[in-house]
């Protein structure tokens, strides 16, 4: 896109727009954009709603963001709530909060602390996930994946005991990757080269090529070494 050719979109307070192509989009307060948006940069604070798909080179948002279509980004940082009705395609995504993505995700780098739900397939170069509640991803295919448990405070423990949704845990059907370092993960199948199954994991079947380490506090149904 030719930079400078498109106008900026600025919303402060309560406002809206029709969508379109912009150079820079800045949303402060409560804003609603009805159609799809394409922009070079996007910053936002507050409640934001985009009616269609969103394509942004660089994006930084705080608050509650809803996107009615797919999200295509260069780099993105989001704190707060994020809901994407389509898929997510991009280079790098840093999340602090809660994300619900309906479709597939394709990212080079995905760093998240909080709660993540991905309805489709997560394909990424490098994933780092700190669990603050129940994360759900249908399938993962990655180069490197590190899952850690956050929220180890007393209140979190108490709340997790009462409300299962708040118990830090990752649920997936299949996890595949070169380097997998898991904690508190429930999966049917885990396949990879180097696999570390940490505390609190419950895995149906593990297929590894080079190395497998299983924590005594984890349960693994079946182990198999492949590629001999």
């Amino acid at each position, binding site marked *: 896109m030719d930079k400078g050719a498109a106008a900026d979109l600025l919303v402060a307070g309560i406002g809206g727009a029709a969508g379109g192509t912009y150079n820079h989009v800045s949303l402060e307060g409560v804003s609603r954009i009805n159609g799809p948006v394409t922009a070079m940069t996007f910053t936002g604070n507050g409640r934001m709603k985009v009616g269609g798909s969103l394509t942004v080179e660089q994006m930084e948002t705080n608050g509650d963001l809803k996107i009615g279509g797919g999200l295509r980004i260069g780099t993105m940082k989001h704190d707060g709530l994020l809901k994407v009705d389509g898929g997510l395609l991009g280079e790098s995504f840093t999340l602090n909060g809660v994300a619900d993505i309906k479709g597939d995700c*394709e990212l*080079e780098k995905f760093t998240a602390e909080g709660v993540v739900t991905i309805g489709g397939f997560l*394909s*990424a*170069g490098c994933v780092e996930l700190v669990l603050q509640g129940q994360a759900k991803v249908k399938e993962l*295919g*990655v*180069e*490197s994946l590190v899952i850690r448990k956050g929220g180890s405070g007393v209140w979190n423990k108490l709340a997790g005991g009462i409300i299962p949704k708040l118990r830090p845990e990752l649920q997936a*059907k*299949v996890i*595949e*990757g*070169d*380097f997998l370092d898991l904690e508190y993960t429930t999966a*049917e*199948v885990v*396949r*990879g*080269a180097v696999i570390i199954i940490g505390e609190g994991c419950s895995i149906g*079947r593990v*297929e590894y090529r080079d190395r497998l380490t299983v924590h005594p506090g984890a349960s693994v149904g079946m182990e198999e070494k*492949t*590629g001999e």
Partner: protein
Amino acid sequence: MEEDLISKKELLDLTGISYGQLYRWKRKQLIPESWFIRKSTYTGQETFFPKERMLGRIQHILSKKDDLSLDELAGKLSDMSSVHKQLLTIKEVRERNIVSSVTLERYGQCDKDEHKYSFEQLIHLVAVDLLLGKGELSLEEADLLHRTLSVNRTQFEGKRWELFFARKMGVSFFLQAPAPSELVFDEGVRLISRITLEDLTEQLQGKLG
């Protein structure tokens, strides 16, 4: 004709590539989404690939990835225009080993070394050569194929097409149809080969480097 499939596990064992690489290439669109075929097996859902095409593509990526970045490679794979403009003399075709000498001598048409082949002509040669090389074609059938392709050239110019080669009760015939197409034959027909223009272009491109 059911295309030969290979499971993901077999593929990785066979080629030595890792899950990470496979998914990375998929993300970079070096491997088309449609090649990931999901099937239920007794161990649950598994992913399969069209064997020949996938192995060819991986070989192609592995041989080129040291010289080009993945993005450049993806651009090259999707950008067929450079191949379309290619004009090669018969000498170059021979030197670069694009088709076997049998094919070239029989269908090359020209004895002059300066004669230039257009993209279409090269593709036709590659098609004939591919099927001959697989041993699925007799030389007479190859004649028929080459004639069919040449005669219909203008009709399919600039379009995507597929070639079907089928036999019924010993009688062989070719069908050239715009892609993507689904053809249904009666029971007695055996579909021996099915090639798309993309497959051929890729073959050609691989050899042109």
